[in-house]
């Protein structure tokens, strides 16, 4: 049995089960509490087991690709349900699962209104994300890409905070609009391929070898780039992000920041760099410029925010600027830096959103001017917050710095002045992170929330696991770097019509 | 001859104008008779003696008598005359008169703009008329008989209704 399709579909099925269970449960006379939550937890555990199997399965494939699965889906159009996994996918899949657990354990249990639907949507989004990391059929990729959006849209607009509708609609418009551009690019690529070879296929590996004129390849690449840039997000099209992150419920914020942004980076590596290498090289200066703009702009605005979640959201923009910069430096170092940065950012920002969400649950405000001095009453939460804030300011020895350092190193090879300019982003990072720390955690206690409950030991264990992972990423990133390098295209795993490969 | 034609035409027109301007119905009828007689002269001058005869006999004779009878039955008096006078203010007749004059001018203009045609004018005797009347136009004669019958029945019906209404 190949576990890849199960990996993709399991959350969706599990989500449906959770939903139905919740509905039948509420109809019951004596409802079991949190039944959908339990099912979700079970699904995630099962998924982890599957991923473990996938990771340690004996790989028989030649070449660097770890796993492959393909069955025809719409054969007339050359569309297949095709999944492939390489180290990059695998590491991002692990990130997805690792982040989902804290989400479910720390953030979704509080959902009381229509919990079944919430968990269903949560798992559906997760399906989209996991599928996006695995799909190598462009149509399937697009399908899953869109699948990610709709549940997230509903999550934000139904369970979000005060200004949720606007935020949700903005999120949806931006991502959906850019997704359409990507669809155009996919179709353009497929049609070009069809004209050249007479073979109608959406297969990633087949399409990778399509001969393209420079202009056309630039055009198609831009289509992909814009879609991924909106997701990443890159500066001029980032405006959906602060609102969406701020207004989303905690679990959705974590999904958004921790995972969904990574699909943008993943897409850039997998599709922009690999499908259109020449165009990407020609486009690199612009992309790098955008990356630097993102780093500085995000950090700068982050310095001025008073809303905790907004501050974290802008810091995300800054961090993802490093990812963009790293991807387009055109060197392996930069690429590895970008990947490490994605993983580390997922962990640190995800955790920060969990903490911000917990603060909001306890104090019912996100305004830093009103929170103030939590250390005395919530020492565990505060120390966790301090740790992740320090991680996000780029502390050497933690994952974020590794990523940033590698990206800066690669950038320095390209242009030292640009890299030096980028490094000033680190100063700004220190300013906004410590500003947050000194407003929330280490500050005169303002409203003494004596009734607020601190994190329990179990919850701290989960956050502790994230901390350990960050430290590992920071001081011993080599195995992960080796693992997570995207496989080159030169060795596609199998020719067409492979079916299940065992 | 020309003089006679002009004179008869003038009498006709003058009579017609008098008809429409009279205040007393009997006067108008009398002027109408004059008009018809003038017209009969014109017919005769146009070489249609049969038509002229019929004009005098039937129109000026029979139909006008009908009018006179009716006027007598209406029993009109001074009040009617006053009312007619009331109704013949210039404010009332000026508009229709102007309209008519305009129409007249247009008609005259269009008629006179057509070229003068002097065809051979030979009189058409009653025999010619009778021949064509019972030759090609026989169907029309039947139609006219129907028309007269219809008129007869209508008049009778209206008159009878009145008597019954009483």
């Amino acid at each position, binding site marked *: 049995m190949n576990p890849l399709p199960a990996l993709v579909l399991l959350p969706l099925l599990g989500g449906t089960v959770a939903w139905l269970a919740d509905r039948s449960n509420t109809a019951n006379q004596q409802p079991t509490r949190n039944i959908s939550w339990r099912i979700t937890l079970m699904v995630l555990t099962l998924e982890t087991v599957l991923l473990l199997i996938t990771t340690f399965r004996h790989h028989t494939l030649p070449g660097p690709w770890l796993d492959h699965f393909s069955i025809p889906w719409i054969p007339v159009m050359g569309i297949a349900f095709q999944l492939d996994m390489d180290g990059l996918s695998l590491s991002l899949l692990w990130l997805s699962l690792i982040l989902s657990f804290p989400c479910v354990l720390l953030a979704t249990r509080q959902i009381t209104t229509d919990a079944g639907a919430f968990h269903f949507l949560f798992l559906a989004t997760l399906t989209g994300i996991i599928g996006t990391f695995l799909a190598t059929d462009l149509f399937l990729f697009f399908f899953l890409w869109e699948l990610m959006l709709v549940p997230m849209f509903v999550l934000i607009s139904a369970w979000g905070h005060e200004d949720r509708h606007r935020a949700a609609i903005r999120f949806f418009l931006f991502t959906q609009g850019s997704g359409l551009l990507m669809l155009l690019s996919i179709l353009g690529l497929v049609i070009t391929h069809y004209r050249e070879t007479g073979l109608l296929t959406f297969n990633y590996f087949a399409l990778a070898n399509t001969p393209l004129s420079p202009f056309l390849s630039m055009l198609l690449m831009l289509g992909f780039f814009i879609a991924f840039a909106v997701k990443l997000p890159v*500066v*001029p099209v*980032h*405006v959906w992000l*602060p*609102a969406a992150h701020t207004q989303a419920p905690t679990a959705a914020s974590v999904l958004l920041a921790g995972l969904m942004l990574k699909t943008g980076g993943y897409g850039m590596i997998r599709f922009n760099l690999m499908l259109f290498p020449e165009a990407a090289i020609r486009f690199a200066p612009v992309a790098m410029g955008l990356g630097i703009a993102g780093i500085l*702009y995000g950090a*700068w*605005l982050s*310095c*001025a*925010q008073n809303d905790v979640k907004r501050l974290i959201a*802008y810091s995300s923009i800054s961090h993802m600027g490093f990812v963009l910069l790293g991807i387009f430096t055109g060197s*392996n*170092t930069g690429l*590895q830096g970008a990947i490490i940065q994605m993983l580390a950012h997922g962990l640190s920002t995800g955790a920060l959103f969990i903490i911000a969400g917990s603060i909001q649950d306890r104090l019912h405000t996100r305004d830093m001017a009103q929170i103030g*001095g939590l*250390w*005395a009453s919530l*020492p565990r939460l505060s*120390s966790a917050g301090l740790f992740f804030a*320090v991680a996000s300011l780029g*502390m*050497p*020895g933690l994952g974020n*710095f*590794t990523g940033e350092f*590698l990206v*800066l*190193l690669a950038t*320095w*090879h390209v242009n*030292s002045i640009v890299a030096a300019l980028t*490094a*000033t982003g*680190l*100063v700004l990072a*220190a*300013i906004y992170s*410590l*500003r947050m720390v*000194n407003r929330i955690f*280490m*500050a*005169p*206690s303002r409203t003494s929330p004596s009734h607020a409950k601190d994190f329990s030991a179990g919850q701290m264990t989960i956050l502790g696991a994230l901390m350990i992972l960050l430290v590992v990423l920071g*001081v*011993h*990133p*080599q195995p992960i*770097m080796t693992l997570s390098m995207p496989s080159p295209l030169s060795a596609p795993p199998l020719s067409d019509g492979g079916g299940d490969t065992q | 001859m020309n003089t006679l034609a002009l004179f008869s035409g003038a009498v006709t027109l003058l009579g017609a104008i008098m008809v429409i301007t009279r205040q007393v119905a009997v006067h108008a009828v009398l002027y109408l008779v004059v008009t018809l007689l003038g017209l009969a002269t014109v017919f005769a001058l146009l070489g249609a003696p049969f038509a002229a005869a019929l004009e005098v006999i039937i129109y000026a004779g029979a139909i006008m008598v009908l009018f006179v009878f009716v006027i007598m039955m209406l029993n009109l008096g001074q009040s009617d005359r006053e009312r007619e006078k009331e109704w013949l203010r210039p404010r009332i007749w000026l*508009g*229709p008169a102007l*309209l008519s004059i*305009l*129409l007249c001018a*247009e008609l005259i*203009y*269009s008629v006179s*703009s057509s070229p003068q045609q002097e065809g051979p004018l030979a009189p058409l005797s009653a025999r010619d008329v009778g021949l064509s009347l019972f030759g090609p136009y026989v169907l029309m004669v039947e139609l006219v008989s129907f028309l007269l019958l219809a008129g007869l029945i209508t008049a009778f019906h209206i008159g009878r209704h009145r008597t019954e209404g009483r």
Partner: protein
Amino acid sequence: MPYLLPLLVFFPLASAIFLFVTAGRLSARTVGWVATGAIGLSALCSITLACFFLFSAVPAPIHIILWEWMHTQAFSADIAFTLDPVSLVMILVVTIVGFLIHLYAIRYMEEEPGIARFFGSMTLFVASMLVLVLASDLFCLFIGWEGVGICSYLLIGFWYENPVNTAAARKAFYMTRIGDTAMLCGLLLLATTTGSLHIETLLATLHAGQIGPDVLTAATLFLLIGALAKSAQIPFQTWLPDAMAGPTPTSALIHAATMVTAGIYLIARLHELFTAAPLVMMLTSIIGALTLMMAACTALVQTDLKRILAWSTISQLGYMFLALGTGVWQAALFHLMTHAFFKALLFLTAGALIARLHHEQDIFRMGGLYRTMPGLTVAFLAGASALAGLPLVTSGFYSKEMILSSIWSAHFPLLPGSFPLAHILWGIALTGAFLTSLYIFRCIFIVFFNTHKTESTGSTPRLMAIPLACLSFLSLFGGVIEMPDTLAPIHLFTHFLSAPLPHAEEPVWLLLAGASAPIAGVVIAWVLWGRATPVMQEIPGQATIIRVAKEGWGVDALYAFLFVQPFRFLVWLTRHDVLDYLITGIGRMVRAISSFLEHTRTRFLTLSSGRTTLLLQSGDTLLARVQNGRVRWYAAWIVAGLCAALASGVVP
């Protein structure tokens, strides 16, 4: 033996993690002892290593690679430790002084509610500092470098209830972070040039001549900026006095003995690199000289006891930079060591004193304390004499004398031989020594020997007294391992560090000058403040220059005016996302336009329909009037139509 190196770091690190995890569950005394025990174990390790080093036949540096941090095509770095004499000196200082300060802090911090946080941060700091010191790879060093920064931040802002403290903490972190960023740039430059940040590889590349002079100058300049920021030299000096907001043990350990000397250590470690960049060397020495002078002058007018010590630290660090700039890094390290002893002593004594005076820090409100606390007086006197460098009996004398004598004979290759920069610098340093002695004895005379002013309570606990005693001993006699040739040819320290220096023949008057300056300072201080009726009770605060000097020469205000306020203002100005507004604005505009269009259309339609209705109505009435059932009117209409038809037929 190599496994002791990771163990050295492990003890404090483990204790830090343990303390953070069990925060709030252990008693204060337990917390203190756990931390002190861990540092003690580290100190034992370092002493063992030192013994091993001293008594081994061929003392070779110990290398240990723990694991590879990363290896890519263009760059590789390892998490690796090296123990050579330079780092051995440092680990001895860090662990022993650290141990003593921890011991002291057990009692000092006993009452604090956040004691676990305090000791956690302190031990974490020691761990980071050890990583910094032991790292054989500049990248690894940078981990420790930033680590000590964040610990310093946490400890300065320990009493976070007061916003002034957290502001000071952030100020310290930001300023050092600016330097760190510059240092990171230097590291990146070196990394791209050599492909590795391993110090030995770096030096090998340097000796192979593969680093161009421009790159070298730029890289060392960047590193220098980092070191200056860390060591609070001009232009970064402003954070250190504010950093005194932290608990006194923190000030002693981090902001006097160890962390602030990281910059000196970095340059000493990379002295070969710096020697190859004469411009940067000269810059280093000039900045050092300026800083020492400026800081000494500032210290002279301070009234806050801890601030006097802080400015004095900056001044002493200036000495070290001066020494580094003139190439005698051994002297810098020697002074670093002795300074760690006596400055820690001074801080701890001051802390004990302040604790007993109900947190009174103004020296002019103290006085005559030698009667009530003779022990502290002796300790403070020991520290002060070492700081002033009273000849022969204090360690400070030997280290300062070493610096002074080496400056005199320093050589700056970039300058023409006739320009006596070395002599000018020597003059500044000598004046500095005089001022040092002046300000610290001013402090002593005012605090200990004047009329009694404040009530003091309790007595110094034994647990606090023991470290003071140890440090007093070290301050007084720690310097005898290295002496000027004129006195005795003892050069244990320099021999230990490197090949023996070629000792130029020093004139005796040089030594005499160096020895007499502190004595002169003491005498003048006694004249001014020490006698029963002092010449000057208080330095007049009215004079503008004094006020300015008291505020650190207005640099703070200048920075606030130049950087902080504009930054705050700009951030405030741009607190809203312009692009967000732009796009939202476009959206709004589109909506406004469309609604305007809609409105206009509606209005137009309403209007036109109204008009049409009106028109139709009027037409309707007209038609209705036409349709009046009056035969004559119908006829008239027929006629009119006929007229029109005819006219249209006739007229054209």
